[in-house]
């Protein structure tokens, strides 16, 4: 702020004012000039920095493109070599038809090792050969493989996510199966990061931890179900509570103030679980990191929480995800009230532990349902790719139809935005899932090289942005504008082949221009 003397503005030259040449006036003028100078300088600096960033970004993009191109060429070369090798193999095998033997069933001449075999490596690496295990080597069982090893490239975009379905649950979580409160011999790791360091940068931290939490929740659910088999009143009670939560979730609407009744009901059911007797469980099994006991006087500061409470939070999370998928998938605006309820429940200190939110329970579900939000990539043309993208299978093991998958992803994308773009500036409670998560998810999707981008990502990105652009701009201002340009113009513009999904993203930019006057093109 400007220092102001009692004399008033130095620019108010009033000839009648005797002190107009006083020192104070002079100092004021100097101060004002200095402030102005600082302001202009700050603006210039910011502009300079922004420009630097842009240039850096552009450099990175170019680098990425070059890298891609290199990887592509190398892949092609490797493929070509594979093919050559195969032909050679075939050639070797041609002249060895088995002598005609009549009796045994015709046994075909041992076929050449087919080239389609999946690599032993978990990741498909469709575009780029794996650094350590050149896939080509796996293809033929030839010992004298002369294939040049693709130079290992740490920056390779090859997706190195380990298969998600089978992360070994930590032993600590196994203990949850033992129903009654056995002492939790192994406390959950404070911060789990076994393979995190090896991950490519676009995959967000904690992905594996979330799959573990998801597994632990499954075990907890089984425990409750088993308990119910022996204890019928308990079963009836949990069933009623579960259905009450689901009913309330289905009642939410976008009207202001209309969700009080269902909200209150959900809170009431969750709180009631503290009254119904159930064994305790260490909540850190269901969190990414374990908080120590709070020094302040907060609720639930002990070592355990009732198992039934965690179970119901899990049911709540399931209901949230299901409602995103089933309702917000077709009418994305329905995600908004659900997001509000999520923020409210998971920021409620009475429903947390040691002053920390238990939202990781929900995020474990979101992580499994919509992996691309965590930076995971995959090709929709491959089995593994689809599995990685969270494409579900039906009860007969067939992939669910594309339309259904797209609807799911639309709902989950909108849902993630509804959870992460909440304004807590007027709340006493802490935001359980602040907006930077949204930024991070968007960044991890838009940084996908064109050759690896999938329709799933375009769909999720579109529904994350649609109806939320205002909120996003509110949080991040000009940075959000730049991000939107990348998300709606640059990213779909780079798409290798125009698809309905990438086109829809681009059309959203047109819609924003037409409806909101937000011009991202210029």
């Amino acid at each position, binding site marked *: 702020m400007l220092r102001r003397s009692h004399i008033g503005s130095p620019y108010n030259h009033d000839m009648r004012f005797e002190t107009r040449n006083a020192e104070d006036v002079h100092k004021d003028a100097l101060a004002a000039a200095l402030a102005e100078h600082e302001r202009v300088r700050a603006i210039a600096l910011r502009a300079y920095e922004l420009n630097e960033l842009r240039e850096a970004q552009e450099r990175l993009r170019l680098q990425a493109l070059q890298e891609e191109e290199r990887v592509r060429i190398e892949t092609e070369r490797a493929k070509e070599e594979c093919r050559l090798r195969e032909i050679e193999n075939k050639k070797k095998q041609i002249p060895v038809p088995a002598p005609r033997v009549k009796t045994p069933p015709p046994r075909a001449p041992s076929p050449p090792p087919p080239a*389609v075999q999946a690599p032993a490596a978990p990741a498909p690496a469709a575009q780029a050969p794996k650094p350590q295990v050149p896939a080509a080597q796996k293809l033929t069982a030839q010992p004298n493989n002369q294939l040049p090893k693709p130079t290992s490239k740490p920056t390779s975009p090859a997706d190195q996510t380990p298969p998600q379905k089978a992360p070994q649950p930590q032993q600590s979580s196994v203990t949850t199966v033992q129903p009654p409160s056995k002492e939790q011999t192994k406390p959950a790791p404070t911060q789990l990061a076994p393979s995190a360091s090896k991950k490519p940068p676009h995959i967000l931290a904690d992905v594996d931890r979330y799959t573990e939490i998801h597994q632990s929740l499954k075990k907890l659910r089984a425990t409750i179900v088993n308990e119910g088999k022996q204890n019928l009143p308990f079963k009836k009670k949990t069933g009623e509570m579960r259905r009450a939560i689901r009913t309330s979730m289905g*009642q939410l*609407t976008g009207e202001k103030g209309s969700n009080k009744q269902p909200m209150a009901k959900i809170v009431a059911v969750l709180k009631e679980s503290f009254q119904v007797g159930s064994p305790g469980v260490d909540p850190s099994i269901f969190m990414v990191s374990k908080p120590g006991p709070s020094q302040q006087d907060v609720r639930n500061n002990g070592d355990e929480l009732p198992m039934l409470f965690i179970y119901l939070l899990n049911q709540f999370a399931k209901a949230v995800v299901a409602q995103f998928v089933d309702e917000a998938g*077709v009418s994305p605006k329905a995600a908004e009230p659900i997001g509000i309820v999520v923020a409210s429940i998971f920021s409620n200190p009475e429903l947390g532990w040691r002053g920390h939110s238990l939202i990781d329970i929900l995020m474990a579900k979101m992580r499994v349902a919509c992996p691309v939000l965590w930076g995971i990539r995959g090709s929709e043309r491959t089995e593994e790719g689809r599995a990685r993208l969270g494409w579900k299978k039906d009860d007969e093991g067939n992939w669910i*139809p594309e339309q259904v998958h797209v609807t799911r992803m*639309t709902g989950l994308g909108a849902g993630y935005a509804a959870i992460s773009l909440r304004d807590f500036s007027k709340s006493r409670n802490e935001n359980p899932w602040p907006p930077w998560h949204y930024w991070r998810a968007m960044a991890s999707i838009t940084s996908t090289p064109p050759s690896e981008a999938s329709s799933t990502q375009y769909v999720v990105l579109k529904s994350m942005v649609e109806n939320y652009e205002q909120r996003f701009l509110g949080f991040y201002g000009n940075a959000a504008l730049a991000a939107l340009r990348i998300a709606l113009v640059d990213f779909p513009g780079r798409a290798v082949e125009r698809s*309905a999904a990438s086109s829809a993203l681009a*059309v959203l930019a047109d*819609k924003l221009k037409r409806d909101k006057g937000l011009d991202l093109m210029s």
Partner: protein
Amino acid sequence: MAASPNPAGSLEDRISKPNAATDATAQSISAWEADAAAPAEAKDDQSGAADAQVDGATDAAGGSALHEPQYAVEVKLSDLQADANSPLYSIGSFEELGINPQILKGMYAMNFKKPSKIQERALPLLLSSPPTNMIAQSQSGTGKTAAFVITILSRLDYTKPKSPQALCLAPSRELARQIEGVIRSIGQFVDGLTIQAAVPGAVERNAKVESMVVVGTPGTVLDLIKRRQFDTSEMKVLCLDEADNMLDQQGLGEQCLRVKNALRNVEQILLFSATFPDAVMRYAQQFSPGANEIRLKRDELTVSGIKQMYMDCPSDEGKYETLAQLYGLMTIGSSIIFVKTKESASRIAARLSQDGHKVVAIHGGFEGADRDGIIEDFRQGRAKVLITTNVLARGIDVQSVSMVINYDIPMKGASDSQPDPETYLHRIGRTGRFGRVGVSISFVFDRKSFQALSEIAKHYNIDLVRLDQNDWDKTEEIVKNVIKSSRAGTNLKA
């Protein structure tokens, strides 16, 4: 693989084209069962693929991909085509159909991704020149409206923004309004498009109808023509939605015919519906002569996405308690409850509101504009439960409806003595739109209602899953399995 149906060839087999020169009215009707007969790809064993993933050394992954040494297992053809019997299954893309980019853009904005079967089959015929008539039947929620809207938008002469060129008729104002909305959405990026509704109260007296596309109810449109507010000289396309319903009803059918006769220069007459009873079909063929036809067999009429169940209720009064419990059994977006009388509609509405639901009720007792408002509340999700008498059984498409309840079984005839399968089909068709899973639950409580529902089930050859209100945990489990299952509660053949 050899069994794979060749789309170009099979189109010929399946859809009849009028033999213009010799016999303009003769058509060979063909149904989609030909598709069903084409064996879906021999289910390539997925387990093989899964093994191959785990063990790089198996050679079970099949030789067909031998020339493509990809490092990951490609999604099997059998998976991509697994739902070849589904009315939503398609192989093409909208881009391939040669649709105007401005129209395409609107479709992208509406999250359309690929054409459904009816769209893929019908659009090439609808868009071909010279314009040919069409009678098209397809299951509820499979994209009929979009098909004729795309046709209409493609036929317009955009240099004549003030001349009505296409007319779309619907049996109710709600449906007309809805179609108007779809045209606006699909046409949102089409420059110079003008659209107008012609439903009671929408057009001022003495005002001219000056939009390229007009959507209305037959009575209002006929009045406008008679009063010379509606110039029909440039009219090129006439489309009847829920055509069987309109042609079948004395008054409506008569009005439709008179509207048609007033359109001297019409080039293309389109009739669309999910149902076409045989008697109506003959009339339809006169109405739209020489039409291409796309038809369904009776037991193909329901969509597999709709899981049909029924609830055994202790008594007529006991139905309410049961109803309230249903909302906890599964994830529900919006829901529609069909009842017989206005009185029970109001009663149920009051009780559900007390339980925290946002409810609206609509029946014949409401005036036009009120009805528009109520439907809009429901469509926008401000209310999530709609209670209605038969008024709304047909055509209304609110995407998020995931449950339809037949609180009373639909009946017809003198003093409701006969079960009404057509109405049942249109009612449950309010859910499971465009390939999504929807649930329909019909309430029975006595011999008569049970009997009526059984007859309807027999009519369509469907297996209804029985639910029980004694053990909700168990019922929840059953519902969960039915929703998950790709077959239960439907007539989808293996």
